[in-house]
Each structure stands twice: as C-alpha cells, then as structure tokens.
C-alpha cells in the first residue's frame, strides 16, 4: 500500500462564469520515505496539489487515499487531526506566530494533540536540536534570520513525528547559501528518519536534492522521473 495515492484528481475553481481547471486527472502514487520535488511554471497547479495533499482543500473529483484512508469522507475536525498527526507543513513565508518564542511555535502542534507539558518541552528541545537551533528556544521570530525561522518551522513540522512533510517553495524567500543548508536539512531528515518529503520548487538546483521529480503544466502531470541520485 502506497503512503499517498491519488486517482484522477480534478480541482476546478469557478470564478463567476469562468472555470479554472487547476488540476486535471492527477493520478500519482507516493511511497513512504520518498523525497519528491514538484516542479512547473507558475500557475501550473503545484500549490493546489499540495493543498489537496495537505488536507487543507478537497478535490472537486477523484480519490485521495492517505495511508489507504479516503480523506474525502472526513469532516473538518477529522482533517485537522490528520494534519496534526500525519502532516508537517513548511511554507515559503515561514508562517510562524510572531511575538511568540521558537519554543512555543514548535510546541503548537502538540498543544492541539493534548500532550502533557513535560513531554511537550522535551520534544520541543529535541526537535530544535535536530534542526540545529538548540539554545534558541526563547528567541522570537523577529530575532531570527530567515534561515533560522525556516528551521523553526521545520522543527514544528517534525515535532509530532508526522511521516510526511509538505513544503511549498520552502526556499523561496531564502538566499542560495541558506537554501542549500535548508535542503541539506531535508535530505538528512529524509535519510535518517525516513520522513517522506514533498516539496515544491521551480529552481533546478533545489530540485537536485530530491530523488523524484514531478512536473506540472496547466494542472496536468507532464513528467514524473526518478533521478539517478540516491
């Protein structure tokens, strides 16, 4: 059984009379432990697809099985629970809570999972250590560089031991050097912890770090290739 399986997913946005077919019959299968880069020009449906995978949005038609479970049948709160336990999100704009310490940002998913305070603190420290931010737990986002903020976001995605990390252009706001560092962190998490990583990028250099590349154009998967790299 594949970790993620989509069958003929369509996503249609209706804007008055105009209909935008953002995804067209997307059928993909993703196994546990894969490192995937989703590529394609702007407006090709990458983010729309990520939102579907992230259970933030429902496809207009088609089936999405996550660990064999049909997500379409779930209600709002059940989807929230899936996002909480199965999925870690990393955004282009970091999306940390401002005026909130790194510690509390990373703690957030566990608050919604009802973990006791002692256990939360332990896990936050471990996650921050993994992303190389040990000792920064009391820093607020505005006291951290972009790269560091993205590391906090990655720690937040890791902290609930989600098997999948979804990253929509995680290096879009970072300089090249920092981008490489962040990508190396993803490679390490994928290699050491077997976390499935799906990231969107339009930069070839960034996509180089992945082992499978899926190209979108106008909502259609135009190519799906494995690189020789292991």
């Amino acid at each position: 059984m594949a970790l993620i399986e989509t069958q003929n997913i369509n996503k249609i946005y209706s804007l008055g009379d105009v209909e935008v077919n953002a995804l067209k019959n997307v059928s993909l299968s993703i196994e546990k432990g894969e490192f995937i880069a989703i590529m394609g020009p702007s407006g090709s449906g990458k983010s729309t697809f990520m939102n579907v995978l992230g259970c933030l949005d429902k496809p207009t038609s088609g089936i999405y099985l996550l660990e064999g479970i049909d997500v379409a049948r779930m209600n709002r709160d059940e989807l929230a629970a899936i996002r909480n336990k199965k999925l870690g999100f990393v955004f282009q704009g970091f999306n940390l809570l401002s005026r909130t310490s790194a510690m509390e940002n990373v703690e957030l998913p566990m608050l919604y999972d009802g973990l006791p305070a002692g256990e939360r603190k332990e896990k936050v420290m471990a996650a921050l250590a993994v992303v190389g931010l040990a000792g920064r737990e009391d820093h607020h986002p505005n006291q951290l560089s972009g790269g560091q903020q993205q590391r906090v976001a990655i720690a937040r995605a890791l902290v609930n031991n989600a098997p999948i990390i979804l990253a929509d252009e995680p290096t879009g706001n970072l300089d090249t050097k920092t981008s490489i560092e962040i990508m190396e962190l993803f490679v390490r998490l994928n290699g050491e912890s077997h976390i499935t990583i799906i990231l969107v990028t339009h930069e070839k250099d960034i996509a180089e770090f992945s082992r499978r590349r899926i190209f979108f154009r106008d909502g259609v998967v135009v190519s799906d290739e494995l690189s020789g790299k292991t």
Partner: protein
Amino acid sequence: MINIPATIRISLRALRVNKMRSALTMLGIIIGVSAVITMLAVGTGARQRIGEQMASIGSNLLMVLPGSTTSGGVRMGAGTQPTLSTGDAEAIQKECLSVMYVAPVLSGVAQVIYGNQNWSTGITGTTTNMLQVRDWPLSAGRPFTDEEMRSASKVCLLGQTVVDNLFGGINPIGQIIRIKNVPFTVVGVLDAKGQDPGGHDQDDTVYVPVTTAQKKLFGTAFPGMVRIIMVKAKSADDLASAEKEITELLRQRHHIGQKQDDDFTVRNLTQMMQAAEQSTKVMTLLLGAIASVSLLVGGIGIMNIMLVSVTERTREIGIRMAIGAKTWDIRLQFIVEALTLSMIGGVVGIIIGISSSEVVSMLFGWPTVISPVSIFLSFGFSGFVGIFFGFYPAYKASLLDPIEALRYE
C-alpha cells in the same frame, strides 16, 4: 482534545500584546459592573433601612386618628378634630376580636428638667399596652402599674435620648424630674430604638400614664380625650378584619348615621411601610436595570474588539488550523480571550463599585449595603457577557477557510 491551560495562556498573551486596547475594552465592563454594584448597594441600603425602621415601629399596627379623611365634601386632614377617647380605646380592646393590644395616646411637647439640666421633648401619655404595641422593652425599671394608671400617678418612663441629655451617667430610676413644673418619678427606661421612617429620633420621648397626661399636663376638649389610638392586630392576616371591626365599633359608639362619614380614620401603618418597601424594591431593580444596560454596552465593546482581533489574526488562525487546531480549539481561544477581558473587567468593576458605594454613603449619608448576591451576580453576569459577546467572533474565526486564512496579508 482541548487543552484548557494552554488555551488560557494563548489568550492571555494575545491580550498582553495589545495592552491599551485590552484596557479600553475592559473599561466598558468596569463601568457597567461598578454601576450595577453601586446602584444595588444604594437600593439595598435604602430597603434595609426601611426594613429596620418597620421593625422598630412594631408590626401589625393600625393607627386610629380623629377626624375624617373627607368631611362634608371638603377634604380634611385626619386628626383635626378631637373625637377619640380612652373609652373608645377600652371598647376596642374589649370588643374587637382581631385586636391584640390597644394603646391610647395623648401627647404634647414639654420642657423636662432634672437638677440644672433641661431638655425639650415629646411627652406621650399612654398605657402600659403601648410597650406591647410597639414591641418596645424596658432596659431598666418597670412599667406603670394598674394602680398608677387609675390614680393618674406622676410617674414616667424615659427614652434613651432623654436619659442621655438629662442624666449623663447617673442612674435615673427613682429620680424626680419636672415636666411642665410637675414633679414625676422615673420608674423605667425604654430600650434604645433609633430613628423612625420619618427620620425622627424615637428615643427622644417621655412616657407618662394617659390619665396623668389628661389631668395634669395637657388640656382636653372633653374628659378622656386622646389624640391617637394605636392598635396591634393579632397577626398580619388580622389587620384587615381589625380595621373593619374598629370602624364598625367606633361608628356605633360615635352614633354615626348610615349616610354620614366617619369622624375618625383608621390607618394601616404596616401596609404603608410595606408599600414604601415595595417601591424601594422597584427602584432598586430599576436602577440595577439601567446600570445593566451599560454592562451590555461594555459587552458590545468586547464583541467589537474581538471581531477586529479575529480579522487581524486571520493568518494566525490559518496557521493554527493547518497545524491541527480543531473548530473548538479556535472558538475556545477567542471565547476565553473575551471571557478574560470581561472577567478582569468584572473584578476591577466590583472593586470600584464597592469603593464608590462607600464614597456615596460617605458623601450623601445614604446607607449602602453590598450584598454578596450582587457581587456574585455581577461576576456571573460579566462572565456571561464575555461568553455571549465572544461567541460570535469566535464562531466566525472557526469558520475561516485555512487556505484563504494562510494567504491573508
């Protein structure tokens, strides 16, 4: 699962971030709650005072006054013409079944002298029954004896104010005082009672036998004349029948024909007091209701700020939702925030309300009473306001679409 301590922590932090705004929002609740507390304190104080005064006058009382309320088409004040007598009082006592005690009263103001002290006070000529009618015990000495009543003896009972002004420290029992230059022996002292509903000092009085008052102190238009007859009914339920019995009896005794008006008036004191108490109660509720309106306005202020806050924090809500916040996690966060605002406002309002009640009673001399009920009520009400007015913004927040919320700038 919803994590309450964490939710509270999140809400408190959000409030701290916007200190000024939080404080101003609370101000509405603070004003509302302190107004409610103060109004209720003033109202309750007034009611309590009336209640105390009612008790001090005595219960189940009727007062028979001479003169009709309407006489020959012209409205006359009751008590204008002397028509009542000691005989009427005795007849009421004997014949009216609903009546427990009767005390005739012939009173006037006179100078009272002891040694080189003198004091002008009200002299009440009455019978020993007066002590039962008024529920008024003696603090020292004894009441008049039947023999003293019959023989119009020159004995008296003193109110505490008279004792204080004439005797200062000396035991008055057995002493001789002069009333209108007539020497009287003090045989007893009345227990201190305080003010009556009209604000008069009830302890500023001297009781003498009614016979003595008639014969030795005050002139009478006819023998046995009295000014008032005080009547105590057997119970509150007997007040109406007592009133009827007395009216029938006195009409008969005064030979009043079928078409003629009464030459006396029976007043139900207890009923009058209860009416006064009832109107204070209504006034208290009214004041409280008016004050509650400001609490309501405070609540609307909270809702307003919470709506602004939800809009401002759309992105934060999106992040929380993406990370796994469920519908009620989001709702509770904002409800707790509104609740915190209103509860802190409530507590501060209670403190200010209590202090301003003190100030009111000091400045205007009104009695104020802070009842625990009013404190619980305002506390509970401000909590309710927080939840009620916090719910809609919280509900709105929980319905946001996570993707759109995340995209919100």
